[in-house]
Structure formats: C-alpha cells, structure tokens
C-alpha cells in the first residue's frame, strides 16, 4: 500500500515537474509548479515531517507561487513562448549533458548508498518519544539555539528583499517624476 | 657605509627627488650630476676592491654559513619566512660590469642632452631607474633579488622606447616586453623550483637546503645535490638559459633586438647595447655555469652551435641592412654570439675573451649608437642612401666614428681584436666538445657534427669577424666617403665639444685596451678562473684534467690555458 502511494506520488511529481519544463504557456507552467510543490509536500508527509510539509504548502505553493502568478498577470505574459527555443542545437547538448549527469548521479546514489546502516525514521520516533515534545517544539528550540544566527540573518535578508523590491519596482524617481531612460552608452 | 646599496639606490632615489624638485630645464644637469656621482662611487668601490683574486671569507645567509668570494657584501633579511634577503656583493666580474654600467650611464645622459625635447623630467627619471635596475642586477647575490632587479630593468625601458621612440615604437615595445617577459617568468619558476629541490646528500640522506642565496646554492652544488645531476637540473637550467638567451640575445630569440634598437631613442639604444645585453652573458657566467655544471657541460655543443649561427646570421643580416641603426643592432647579435661561444668553450682563453668582448662591445657599440644618434639628430634619417661624403663637412665626427667602426670590426691594435681573438683561439680547443667526442665518439657530440675538429668552429666564427669588417666598412664608406650627393647634407655642423668628448673618451678607451690589454686581462683573470673552477666541480672536466690524455692532439694547448688544474 505504502509503496503504491509512494510510486504514484513519485510519478506525479516527475510529471508535474516536466510540465513546468514543457508547458509553453507561463500560467500553465506555474500551475504545474504549484502541483509539483504539493506533491513534494505530500512526500514530506510520508516522511513524517508534518510541519515542513505544511510550511511547504503555505509558503511555497501558497505565497511564493501567488506572487509569481501575480507578476505574470501584471506583466501580461500569458502569451505562449515562441517555439524558437529548440532551434538552438547547443541547448540539446546541454540537455543531453544534464541527463547524463543525472544518470551518473542516480547510479551513484544507488550504488553508494548504505541503506542498511541508516537508523531511519525509527530513530526519529525514538527521539520524539523520549523528549515528549512535539516536532514543532523541537524545531523551534533548535532554531533559537543552534541555528540562531541564520534565524537572525533571515530577518536581515527579508529586510534587504523588501528594500530591493521597492527600489527595483518603483515608478517614480527621487523627485517624484516618472523614470525615463537615458540614451547612455555605458552605466555610470 | 653600505656602498653597494648606495650605488644601486642613488640613481632612482635621487632621480625621483630631482624630477620632483628641479625645474624642467635643469633636470638634465641634475641627471648628469647623479650619474657622475654614481660613477664616482663605483670608482671608489673599485679602489677599495681587492683585485688579487684571493679574497674569500665565511658569510652568513640565514641559517647557513658558507665561504664566499664576494666583497663588500651587504646582507639584510627581507622576507624571512622564505629566506629572501637583500644581499649584494661584488666580485671581479660584477665589478667590471658596474664600471661599464656607470660609465655608459654618463654617456646615456649626455647623448640625450639636446635630442630629448619633450617631457624631459620623465625621460631622465626612467633613465636613472633603468640604471638602478642594471646596477642591482649586477650586484645582487640573492637570486630572488636578482630576479627583481632583472624585471625592474624592463619597466623604464618599456617607457623609454614606448614614449620617446620613433615611428614603430609601440610594436617594438610590446615585442620586446613580451619576449623578455616570457623568458623571465620561466626563470622565476626555475628559481622557486630550485629553492625547494636544492640540497645535498650526507651519508646517503638528503639534506634539503631551502635558499635563494646564490652563495649557499653554489656551495651545496659542490656536494652533488639533486640539482647537480643532469636529470634534476636540465629544466631549471633551460629556464634560466632561455631567460638569459633572450637578453643576450641568442639566435632564435633575437628578433626583438633590431626592432627595439631601431625604435629606441639614442640613450635607450646606448644602454640597451652597452649594458643591458651584458646582463644575459653575466647571468650565464654567474648562475648557469656554477649551479648546473653538468648540464652546462652536456649542452655546451648546442650552445656553441647556436652561438656560431648567431655570429654568422647576425653578420649576414647586417650586410643587407640599409638602416644604419638596424645594421649596428644586427652587429650586436653577431658580437654577443662571440660572448656565448667564448663562455661555452670552457677554457681560460675563451672565457677571458668572452668577458673582454662584453666590455669591448659595451664600448664600441655604444660609440656606434652615439654616432648614429648624432647623425640622426642632424639629418633626421638613418637611411644609408641619404648619406655619403659626410667626412668633408664633419671631419672630427668621421675620424672618431672611424675608431669606433674599426674597434667594432676587430682591427688589431684596438680593443675588439683582443677579445675576439681570444675567443677564437680558445674556441679552437672547445673543451666540452673535445671531451664528449672523445669519451663517446658515437654520441651526442658526434650527432652535432663535431668530432675532434674543433678548429672548424673557430674557422666558422672567424668568418663572422671577416663579415663584420665587411658590413662595418661598407657602412662607413657609404656614409662618410663618396660624393656628397644630398644637398642638405652640405650644411651640417660638425660635433660640439659635448658630442666629440663622448666619442673621444670611448675612442681612448678602445685604443688603450687595444694597445695595453694587460691590466684589463689581469682584472678579468680571477673572474675567468672562478667561472671555470665552478664549472669544473662535478663535470668530467675535473677528471679529464687528471687523466693523462694522449689521444687528443691539441690536449696540451687547452690544458695549459684552461686554468682548471687549480683545484678549488
């Protein structure tokens, strides 16, 4: 049963991911990406990472992708990409190389993984039972102790992102006039 | 008093001060004063120098203590973790070279007196920095320091040719820079590599001696470390040799020289020909021979042949030149070929001839370039077809140039003759070729087409002398004799005292060395002996000397002359 569910999920993830790749319509591509992320969230659930799975749904599929769709609509990018992309042979070579790389990697993972030795989910269960705390509590504790620096840095990152988004997206310059483009040769 | 450091530093430091403080029109007087001061210091140093050749003392280079023959040695640690130090010292060879450098420096300033009209400050500044670089190159004992000065010579010359040169100057500059750069980066790799591989075997255990000090390295080479063996040393030897060969310049690497000479201002040409080329020969004698005796010995036939090719090729090319300056440039290729030939003949006569030829070439070719510069200043052309019959208007000029031309052509009684004659005589018993041909008749030397007939080499080289007389006399004849066919040449003014003074001093030197070579040869002799001693360590040369050799007819001649019988 588990195997069936997992296999289906695997197949769906790959199909949706390929959808991102092959859909020429940007909106369809984005929707496909949302479904890929939902599939990955389901995968997290199978691995008992409930909190991460929820965050995946809320932040990724919910927030980030909505921004994407919003920008797509804003810029009116719904027209399909022109099919010129396959005209460049170089891209085929790139694709072939990437897939070659993938197979090597996949083979490596098959060959080199030491599945027998891994304690797996059982260890995680044990840890949870012993501590008697919920997963979220443990994550939170870890976050404000060992990973406090990244946690704090994230706030800076978000601040930078906000400032950057404001700078890049605004329409008016310092004097409140519309931004016009120079016919400059170089930057300043 | 750090005499040698002063000699090195004074041109650049005082030059900078003079350029910052003096007004434009006084800079040349300042520059002249500085080079004269430098010359005075060098002469003072020569006065304090022990010319006997017995000087030797224990010196320290970081944690090593080795015997050294360098006098007035100054030692200041610089980058201590890598054992790089400011070590300068002087021996016979470098003493002669810095005397030449200081003297030529004065001529370089004097000949720019009226010919440099734009941006004089910068010109004299670069000229003086160039002198610092050359002095440092001749005086550095620490090999890293040597490399630094070696490179320091490049930048000022780059600007001198690039800014004050004639029409094609940019092409010539880039060619010159890229040639020398390519050579010298190889030298740096070789130096670093030698730093790590240097050492000796003590009871079969390898003792690493990391050092950039030439004294330490030369000393450990005597103990047959890995660098002393042929296989260990072939690459660093080749790297160093290529760097030096570019500067000399030896045959396949010479093509930058005619361009650089032709485009350079007179002062640049004078220093380039008079001193700079000698750094190559100096480097070979100083570093290639003592540090890699085996390789130097084994590759001597190749170097000899290259030298022969350079001699003949340079002379033949010079014959067909129509540009006077280019002709003199190619004659430099030919003359410096004699130097290499002398060095790689490995006997006392040839070696002393080689060193003397370096000095002679400094005198006579500088004189020729000075003369060409004076001519150019008057006529603004260097094409021989534009001259002719100049001796009528310019008698002093013609007479003094005559001395320089004959000196360069090797007329007996003038300095050129002594040096080249010694090289020719010495090369007639080219030791490495004879030994290699004797010990391994079917081997490398035979493959090089040389058996015991080393006189053949001398004969080939002698054609260079003859051809030299041909092209120089043709040049002289077409310039000074014949009809005065160009009308504007009729109004040329003869030399002013500043100009004929320079040529006169050089002429006197040429005649003096030609007539009384003994003092100079005496000064050269310890340098010769030292070079041959250093090369004798570890080479078959030493054993060769001990064996009773009967198979080679000319044995007696060279064994007497080589000076290798004095064991170190």
């Amino acid at each position: 049963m588990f195997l069936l569910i997992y296999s289906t999920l695997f197949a769906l993830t790959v199909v949706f991911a390929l959808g991102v790749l092959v859909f020429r319509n940007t909106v369809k591509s984005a929707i496909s990406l949302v479904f890929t992320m939902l599939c990955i969230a389901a995968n997290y659930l199978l691995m008992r990472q409930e909190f991460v799975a929820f965050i995946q749904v809320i932040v990724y599929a919910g927030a980030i992708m909505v921004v994407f769709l919003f920008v797509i609509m804003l810029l009116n990018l719904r027209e399909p990409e022109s099919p010129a992309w396959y005209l460049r042979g170089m891209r085929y070579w790139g694709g072939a190389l990437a897939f070659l790389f993938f197979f090597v990697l996949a083979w490596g993972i098959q060959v080199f993984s030491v599945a027998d030795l891994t304690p797996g989910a059982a260890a995680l269960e044990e840890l949870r039972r012993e501590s008697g705390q919920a997963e979220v509590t443990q994550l939170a504790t870890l976050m404000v102790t060992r990973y406090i620096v990244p946690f704090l840095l994230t706030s800076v990152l978000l601040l930078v992102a906000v400032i950057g988004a404001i700078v890049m997206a605004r329409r008016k310059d310092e004097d409140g006039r519309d931004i016009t483009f120079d016919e400059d040769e170089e930057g300043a | 008093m750090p005499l040698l450091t002063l000699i090195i530093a004074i041109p650049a430091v005082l030059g900078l001060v003079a350029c910052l403080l003096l007004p434009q029109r006084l800079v040349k007087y300042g520059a002249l004063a500085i080079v004269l001061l430098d010359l005075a210091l060098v002469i003072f140093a020569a006065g304090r120098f022990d010319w006997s050749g017995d000087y030797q003392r224990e010196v320290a280079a970081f944690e090593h203590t080795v015997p050294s023959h360098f006098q007035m040695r100054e030692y200041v640690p610089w980058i201590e973790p890598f054992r790089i130090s400011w070590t300068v010292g002087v021996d016979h060879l470098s003493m002669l070279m810095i005397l030449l450098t200081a003297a030529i420096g004065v001529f370089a300033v004097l000949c720019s007196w009226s010919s440099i009209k734009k941006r004089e400050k910068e010109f004299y500044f670069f000229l003086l920095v160039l002198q610092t670089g050359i002095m440092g190159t001749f005086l550095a004992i620490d090999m890293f320091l040597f490399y630094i000065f070696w490179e320091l010579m490049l930048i000022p010359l780059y600007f001198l040719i690039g800014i004050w040169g004639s029409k094609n100057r940019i092409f010539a500059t880039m060619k010159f820079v890229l040639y020398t750069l390519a050579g010298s980066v190889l030298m740096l790799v070789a130096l670093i590599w030698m730093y790590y591989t240097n050492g000796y075997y003590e009871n079969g255990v390898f003792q690493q001696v990391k050092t950039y000090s030439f004294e330490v390295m030369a000393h450990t080479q005597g103990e047959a470390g890995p660098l002393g063996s042929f296989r260990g040393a072939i690459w660093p030897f080749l790297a160093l040799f290529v760097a030096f060969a570019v500067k000399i310049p030896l045959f396949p690497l010479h093509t930058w020289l005619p361009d650089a000479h032709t485009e350079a201002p007179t002062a640049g040409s004078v220093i380039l020909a008079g001193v700079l080329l000698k750094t190559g020969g100096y480097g070979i004698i100083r570093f290639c021979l003592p540090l890699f005796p085996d390789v130097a010995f084994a590759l001597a036939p190749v170097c000899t042949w290259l030298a022969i090719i350079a001699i003949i090729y340079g002379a033949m090319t010079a014959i067909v030149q129509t540009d006077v300056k280019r002709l003199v440039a190619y004659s430099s290729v030919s003359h410096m070929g004699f130097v290499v030939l002398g060095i790689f003949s490995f006997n006392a006569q040839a070696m002393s001839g080689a060193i003397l030829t370096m000095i002679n070439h400094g005198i006579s070719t500088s004189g020729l370039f000075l003369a060409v510069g004076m001519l150019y200043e008057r006529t603004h052309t260097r094409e021989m077809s534009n001259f002719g019959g100049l001796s009528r208007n310019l008698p002093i000029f013609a007479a003094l140039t005559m001395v320089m031309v004959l000196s360069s052509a090797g007329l007996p009684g003038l300095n050129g003759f002594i040096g080249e004659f010694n090289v020719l005589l010495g090369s007639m018993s080219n030791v490495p070729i004879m030994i290699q041909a004797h010990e391994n008749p079917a081997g490398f030397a035979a493959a090089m087409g040389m058996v015991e007939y080393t006189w053949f080499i001398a004969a080939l080289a002698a054609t260079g002398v003859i051809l030299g007389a041909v092209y120089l006399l043709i040049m002289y004849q077409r310039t000074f004799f014949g009809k005065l066919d160009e009308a504007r040449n009729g109004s040329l003014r003869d030399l002013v005292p500043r100009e004929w003074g320079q040529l006169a001093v050089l002429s006197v030197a040429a005649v003096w060395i030609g007539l009384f070579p003994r003092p100079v040869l005496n000064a050269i002799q310890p340098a010769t002996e030292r070079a041959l001693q250093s090369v004798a360590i570890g080479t078959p040369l030493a054993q060769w000397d001990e064996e009773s050799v009967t198979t080679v007819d000319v044995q007696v001649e060279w064994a007497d002359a080589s000076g290798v019988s004095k064991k170190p």
Partner: protein
Amino acid sequence: MDSSLPVQAYVPEIHPTGLIPFLLLLLGGIACLVVDAATGKEGSRRYLPWIAGGTLLASITCFFLRLVPGEVFLEDTFRADAFGQLASIIILASTFVMTTMGPSLVRRRNLPSGEFYTLILFASLGMTLLAISNELLTAFISLEVFALSLYVLVGIDRRSRKAAEACFKYFVLGAFASAFLVFGIAFLYGAAHTTFLTEMAEVFRQGYVESVGPEGAVTEIPVNTMYVFVGFAFMFVGICFKLSLAPFHMWAPDVYQGGNMPAVMVVATASKVAAFAFLVHLVEALSYWQGFASGAVYIVTAVAVVSMLWGNLAALVQTNFRRMMAFSSVAHSGYMTVGILVLVALPGLMSGAELEAGQLLIRQAVILYMAGYTVMNILAFGVAYYIGGGGHMAAYRGLVYRRPLPAAGMAIAMFSLVGIGFTPPTIGFMGKFYIFKEAVQVGFVGIAVIALLASVISAFYYLNLVVTMFMRAETKPAEAPLAGTPEAPVQVGGELLARVVLVTACVLIFVFGIFPQLFIGLGETLVNGAVR
C-alpha cells in the same frame, strides 16, 4: 551532532564582543533608513555618506581593537581566524571606498540615497559574515544577503537601460548558482550529518558518523564518498559563479559593463574576497576526508586552468575597458584558485603539524593575493570612475597629457595587475609569487608555468591600456568623446576623500609589495590578543 541533541535548557556560548562589528553594520544600515526617512532628499544625501562610511570604519576599528575572538565563536557558527578577519577587513575597506564614491554617483544619477547606503551596509554585513562563517546555512544566507543587495545595487540606476539588463543577468545567474549551492549543501549534509564545518572536519577525520539507533544502540555510519564529492562539486559550481571562474563567468562582462562603477567595484573585489574566504574554509574542512584530494584536484585544476587561459585570451580581444577588466578578473580568480588547488592537494602530501603549517602558508598566500587584487581593482576602477572614462578606450587615449596623476595611478594598477614577470615590487607580484611558490612546492610545476605564461598574455592587454594612455597621440579637445554625455568626468577637485583613497591604494600597492610580511603579520596581530 544534533542527532543526539538533548532538548533541554541550553545556553549558547556567545562572545558578545565578537558580534559588535556586525551589529554595527546592521544598526548602521537601519540608521541609514531612519535618517533617510527623517530628513529630506538633500539631507539624506548630505548625512548618509558619513553615517555609512563611519559605520564601516567603526566596524574595521572593532577588528583592530581585537573585539572579535580569533577562533570559532557563537556556537561554532563563526570562525574568525586571522584569515577570516583579514578578509573581513578587506571587504569592509572595499565597501568603504564605495561609500566614498557614493555621493557623486547618487547626485549625478539621481539615485535614492537611503536605499543605496543601506544596501551597501547590508551587503558588507553579508560579505563579512560569509567570510567568517563556519556553518553552511549561515554561509548560504549571508551569501544571499549580500547577493540580493548587490543585484539591486548594480541595477539601482533605474534610468539606465544597460544597468537593468546587467542587474537582470546578474540576478538570474546568481539565483541559478545559489540553487547549485543549496543542492551541494544538502549532499554534504547527507554525508556528514551536520552543517557545521568544524564538526564536518571531525567527521571526515574519523571517517564515520555515530548515530544513536532505536534502542540506544550506536551505529557507525561511514561517510559516503559519493555524497562528499557531489556536495563539493555542486557547492564549488555555485561558488564559481560568484567568483566568475571560467565556465561560469558569463555574467561578469555584462555586469561589469552595465552596472554603475562603484557597485561593479564591490562586485569585483569584496564579493569575491568573501566567496574565496568561504571556499578556503570549506575546502579545509573537506580536505580531511581521505579520498577528497584525489577527486577534487581534477575539478579544481580544470576550473583554474580554464579560467586563467580563457580569461586572459578573451580579455585580449576586448575593446571595452570594463569588459577587459571583467575577463581579467576571471583570470585573477583562476590564479587564486591555484591556491585552493594546493589546499586541496596538501593533505595528501603531509599531515599533522606540517600540514597545518602548509595550510597556514596557503591561507597567507591567498589572503595576500586577495588584498592585492582588491587594492589594484579599487585603484583601477576608482581612476576610471573619477576620470569618467567608463568603458571607452578612447577616453584613455593620451590621458597622461590631460590628467597625468590619474594616468600614473592607472598605470601602477595595470603594472601591478600584470604581476609576475614585470613589476616586482608591487603587491600583484608578491601575491602571485606567494601562490605559485606553494604550487611549485606541492609539485604543480606545470600549472605554475601555465599560470605564469597566462600572465605573460595578460601583460599584453594591460600594457595595451598603458600604451593607450602614455604613448598614443593626445586627443584633441574637440574630439573628446565624452563631453556632455553621462560619462563626463566627475570633478575630483572637491573630493579630497577620493584622492586620499586612491593615493592610499597606490601606496599600499608598493608597501605590501615590498613588505608582504607586514600584511600577513597584521593578521597575526589581530588574532593574538583576541578574547579567545
């Protein structure tokens, strides 16, 4: 390792003084925003440069006051050894130079000064933290902090079409690269079960991870070689993008050409210093894994050689100063990667105290090179900025006749950039000497020769600029290509600070070139009296 993490009262070990320089940068950035909001356009243009520059100088001072501990601190998240601290100082100095260039740029291009200076400070915060981070996640987020800031700084001039394009390309390839970086981190995490580099080194040294099983049974999970290599390879690719190493340098010429000069200067210097410092720490940790050298050497060698050759050859044919500098920076990253290469190979050759001494030498060589590279680029870009030359080679024609001192400065920068073989007493020479010396020592003679011949090639285009400035005929004033364009020269007349900075760069090129030990000794001074 956190598998055995007891969830209990947990007091992190923090050296609060160590955080002061970074907190200063953070507070300075926020202060800039607040002041910008409080004062008007003119007010913020007047005050913010002082606030930003002052913050950066104060932050540098904190390092000199030895407030930052000399080893790992803050729960091993940071490792501020002499190397990291020197790298931080270089980064802060470079961003400080950018703040000195800021006022003229902001005024000329009518930029939002609040955001401009805030982003500079946040970028320097990210870069310094990356340079000393000892934990992969911290490193990644720091990298993102400065990367996002720099994307925006490159494109902050909204009136310029080319800046928009440069910003776009920088962003797209940067995001692509950071995905590689994350993927690599994931695999290293899988191999070592931790993201902390010191713990990672420990795991690799012993070769297995202890894992507590269900019944408290301890299992020893051997380190998976495959994961180490995949992790390193992907992380290296990600960092290569940041360093503009050869097959991953596509963004560099466009960003250098399109971005505004001060931002480009920081992209060229500080961001690379930060990424290199992190790479050094990463490689040092990984090199404890036995088989690491045998595999990684090939990757690093390939990247280094291709960068040196391709960077120099491509720079030869450039007609635009900025693009030339971009390709030259590719080559210089390649030279520095030779240092990384030695670091990778070193554990295979020696061990114990000897290894540590060897690693120390490499770190010294790399940091010296980075310092030199930064100073030379600051000088070159600074001169180019203040003469308003931008990318046109025509602007440099006969420069020495019009503005002798900037021309001399540029010539010094170019000579120093040639480095080996031409200009001995400059820092460019010493940096290369230090690095190639180590390369020769571990037996990479061939690579050293390739590197040196590559720098002979580089002499051609660097000297070509010198030729253009010094030896080509003077441009007539009527032909001056720049009059009235946005590239018209910035008048340095009033900007005393700019002159001071550029003259300092000139002096440093020679001082550190003649006495490289001064700079390396500086690092030791910083750490000796440290808190810990």
